[in-house]
């Protein structure tokens, strides 16, 4: 009964967020969100996409004139929508509707992912005999919370209404996670390939996706299962629906067996999809310099950071200051920063691939060359999936306040610098640095809270073990 009421409330909130977006879409000129640097970066701006589409219609290369830097596929999908006008409606209404739909789909996918994580996690806890933990913490349906956080996050709303393509990019990332969680390997591969194709950075998500497919979704630390096995404690055979269908294995073993079959399947599918995407791209940019030009203008643009217009990241300021002959060196250093953290995190968090994906996304959205609030929207939404595990997170109130403060202050500083002329670039960059620090604290605190949670589980499990022995 209460469950039903809760569910009803959830759908009411979802509908409310949908209506809220639709209302906001009707005031695009007044809010002027599409020209905010926080919302639309050179990669995600729809205005640039429109420009690219016009160039293409005029039989020019869409990449001519350094305006458009996105994927040619996005151009063919969204381009026709940007020119279509409906009488009496705002200009980009069709695109906005697409983004709204993408947002709602994203939220639903997050909810399904959450559902999946929850059930499998509970089953694994049960097999360890730690149901009490799960029962007490399951009061909060993390899936609903995550979906609502995603939908009602001001960042998401702003990114959606502000005509940036980040909802679509986020959708690709979430699709791949969803596919991996539910063992739909082709879908996971498709999501991963598309996400990489659209914004390059999600390439690092291959590790969490492979872990997800190999080991299945989140588990408590793996060595607990080993101990249980050693302890030879009888467990009721559970009818666990795992990815390895048809294999009647013991629950404990499941967590420790890496299913190479699925991973290889994933790799093959990725190859197929990327080949397919490349062929499509090649066809669409054939007469404009081919794939080479596309790679140079999209990935090259992301990696070499030629556009130094201000955004909420930290790279633009740095590369505006740095001497030209050091530029390549620092480009490598900055991009290595992301790669350095991949392996250690993967080793430490390999039993929680979804959380690992969250950490990767947060890190890359902090260090990427053209970040926007759309990226933050994605990782904050994913953070909602781990509410139960992160219940003991420190500084949550502080983080919240600083998030609110920094996001308001950054737009004020930008106004002070660009429009009023009384501030300067340092004012704005200071907020960008504060924002980066904030993200660092968020990642550090959430990871340490997660590790603490694992430690707690270990303690409980050992205690139980000893109890049963005694």
């Amino acid at each position, binding site marked *: 009964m209460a469950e039903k009421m809760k569910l009803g409330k959830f759908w009411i909130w979802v509908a409310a967020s949908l209506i809220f977006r639709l209302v906001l879409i009707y005031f695009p000129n*007044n809010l002027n969100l599409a020209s905010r640097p926080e919302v639309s970066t050179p990669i995600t701006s729809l205005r640039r996409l429109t420009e690219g589409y016009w160039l293409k219609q005029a039989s020019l290369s869409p990449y001519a004139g350094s305006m458009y830097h996105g994927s040619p596929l996005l151009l063919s999908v969204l381009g026709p929508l940007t020119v279509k006008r409906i009488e009496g409606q705002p200009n980009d209404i069709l695109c906005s509707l697409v983004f709204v739909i993408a947002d709602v789909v994203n939220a639903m996918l997050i909810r399904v992912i959450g559902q999946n994580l929850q059930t499998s996690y509970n089953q694994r806890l049960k097999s360890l005999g730690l149901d009490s933990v799960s029962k007490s913490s399951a009061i909060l349906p993390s899936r609903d919370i995550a979906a609502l956080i995603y939908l009602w996050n001001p960042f998401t709303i702003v990114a959606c209404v502000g005509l940036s393509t980040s909802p679509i990019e986020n959708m690709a990332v979430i699709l791949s996670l969803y596919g991996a969680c539910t063992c739909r390997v082709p879908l996971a591969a498709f999501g991963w390939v598309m996400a990489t194709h659209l914004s390059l950075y999600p390439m690092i998500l291959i590790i969490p996706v492979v872990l997800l497919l190999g080991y299945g979704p989140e588990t408590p630390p793996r060595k607990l299962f080993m101990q249980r096995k050693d302890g030879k404690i009888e467990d009721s055979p559970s009818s666990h629906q795992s990815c390895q269908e048809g294999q009647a294995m013991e629950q404990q073993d499941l967590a420790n067996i890496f299913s190479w079959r699925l991973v290889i399947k994933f790799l093959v599918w990725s190859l197929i999809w990327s080949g397919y995407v490349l062929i499509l791209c090649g066809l669409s940019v054939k007469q404009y310099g081919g794939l080479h030009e596309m790679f140079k203008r999209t990935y090259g643009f992301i990696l070499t950071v030629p556009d130094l217009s201000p955004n909420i990241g930290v790279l633009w300021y740095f590369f505006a200051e740095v001497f030209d002959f050091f530029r390549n060196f620092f480009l490598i250093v900055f991009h290595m920063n992301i790669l350095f953290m991949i392996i250690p995190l993967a080793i430490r968090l390999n039993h929680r691939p979804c959380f690992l994906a969250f950490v990767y996304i947060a890190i890359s959205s902090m260090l990427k060359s053209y970040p926007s609030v759309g990226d933050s929207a994605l990782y904050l939404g994913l953070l909602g999936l781990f509410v139960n595990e992160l219940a003991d997170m420190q500084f949550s109130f502080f983080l919240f306040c600083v998030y609110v403060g920094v996001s308001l*202050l950054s737009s004020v500083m930008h106004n002070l610098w660009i*429009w009023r002329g009384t501030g300067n670039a340092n004012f704005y960059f200071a907020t960008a640095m504060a924002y980066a620090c904030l993200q660092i604290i968020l990642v550090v605190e959430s990871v340490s809270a997660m590790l*603490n949670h694992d430690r707690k589980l270990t*303690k409980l499990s050992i205690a*139980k073990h000893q*109890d049963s022995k005694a």
Partner: protein
Amino acid sequence: MADNETPTPTPTPTPRPKQRPIVRLGIFLISHSFLFSVVCCTAGVVALLLLPILAKSTYISENALMPGSAKPMLSGQEVSEANRFVKDLIALNSNTPGAAIESQRLIAEYMSNLGAEVNYHKFHPQMVQFHPLHFFSSPDSRIIEQNISCSSYGVNTVGIIRAPRGDGKEAIVLVTPYNPGKIKQGEALSLGIAYSVFSLLTRVTWLAKDIIWLASDSQHGEYAAVAAWLRDYHMPVFTTLHTKSAEMCPVSNYLYELKDNPITERKIYDGFKRAGTMAAALVIKVVDRSERFDDSLSINAEASNGQMPNLDLINIVNYLAVHRQGFRVKVEKLWSLLDSKWLNVLGELFESVGQVVRSLNPQWKFGIPAADYVEGIATLASSLYNQALGVPTGPHGAFRDYQIDAITLEISPRASVDSMTRRNDFLLQGGRLIEGVVRSVNNLLEKFHQSFFLYLLTSPSKFVSVGVYMIAFALLVAPLPMVAASFYANAISLNSIQTKDKSTPATGSDETDITLRSWKWINAAKKVFVVHLWGSVVSLLPYFICRVPDLSPTISFITWFLLSVLSFLIMYLVLASSFSHAKASKFHVGEWAILKSVTISAAFIGLCLMSVVNFSTAEIGGLIVVPMCLMVYPMRLDIRVRTLRTLLRLACNLVLAFIGFPPVTFVLLKGAFEGFDNINIGDFWCWVQSLWAWSSATYLFIGMVHLPCWALCIHILFHHC
């Protein structure tokens, strides 16, 4: 939390290892937050009072300006021409019916006789309306009024000299507001000064920037005319719709009959003439009231939202006026402060402290004479007040919206300027000042950027820069995060102790309590968010009230008040009911403390934001909001204890809560400065109306920071715990 050895699920925290120094420092600050907040707040107020002493003398920061390095070239010839022009203008007044058009034609004729390009700029003054989104948008997104009535339009006369040495990419603007229907002597004189400079500049060889002389039609307000011209200057209208509607008015057309005049024909243009980007603008006004001792010059610089022009512009004007032309330069003061007792006492105190300091070490320069101190405070208060209002103090304000540095020079002559020689002297003096300023600005290679944009003036030659006055503000708001943290920490620890006492056998619900400990602020945050949402609804209400015609200010205010209360009730019923299930029994112990800490955090964020947008508003708002937020404590707890301390605190809280209500604050402040004789509630409405008409951020501050904080403080004060 995790380090428990016992098998029970309730975690018992073992004593932690020694913490890092920064954490220890934080804990130390938090545990002594009361002491620190008292010390910081007092220090903040003292620092604010010390500002006149800490003010530095102004200096010219941009080397290229070189004010006064050249000999003034304005001679008797230009002045006598200007005098003839002034006489002609004044003579026009006799025949009233066509005076407006005649005077415009006369000015245009004189301009074009000098060889300038002349054009008329017709404009329709924009109605004062409440556009809630104007606060956030850049000036170019203003909506052009649709219904233009032919009866009210103004005509600016614009003359442009092309610089012989320039590339036409930069310009300097001289503005002389005047009322063409009835030209007063002061207006005629200001036109005369501009004319003398203009006629000189047509002949000089050193000019590198174009000169624009805008004789703005001040029938519909000085500001509106300049703003309309600037808007058309920066936003070319490509569609003919707008111009057509202006052409439709029959009256406007016969200005062009002027073109029949063969002499002026070649120089007067139909279209809108432009020069380059504007480097600086000077608004010249001559005030009719005569000064007793000296010719004096007062400088008005505050633009909308407390923005100031670059300090260098004020510096060169001040330097040239004082050292070259012998003007007495003034900036606005709050006169009522000049003879206040306590300020004089304070000034003497600081003076004697300064003497003591100097006797200790002659190198330390601290302290200024008491009279100077009081003057400084009065100027500072006026500066703060004008900036905080966010209403520009003259037509120069319109320029700041386009990032152009501009000031208004109000020249008041010593005695009456009726006599010929006296008038000549006055024109020469004023003309040379303007010439010197134009020559300095002409030297600029880039736009003004060297000196300060964020400063407060304590006298024409002394300023307090942002680095100094921010200290006062930072000290004032520093206790907010500290107290918020301390209340938060206390509430959390209190709660955990309480739950432990209540039930030793851990049940499921207690477990959640503990696991969700770090997220408990969410409920309070929801509440605070809803109240802030209500604040924004309240700030939007005047948009609808304005639509109702013929409401007196008092009735409007009362409607506004009632609608606000109604919206509060509605919000409470709709939103609070959905949250109420959460607060059923779980979070009662430290609920008010957490709510207070969230309130304080919100106030802190709001004040910090406002300090960047408009420092003065934040400072004045901070003086009211900070004590209110820090002191607030539930009344019931105070009454329950009933000691002298708690009763004192209760009294303080009640007084602060009363003062903190925005209309009451307004009435008290107004009464303090102007006396309580003729105060009525409608005044607040009028004041607020003027705020949003100028899209002042102060309005947003009151609606979205001050009012919600006050409401939350009241809520905490009457909290049932």
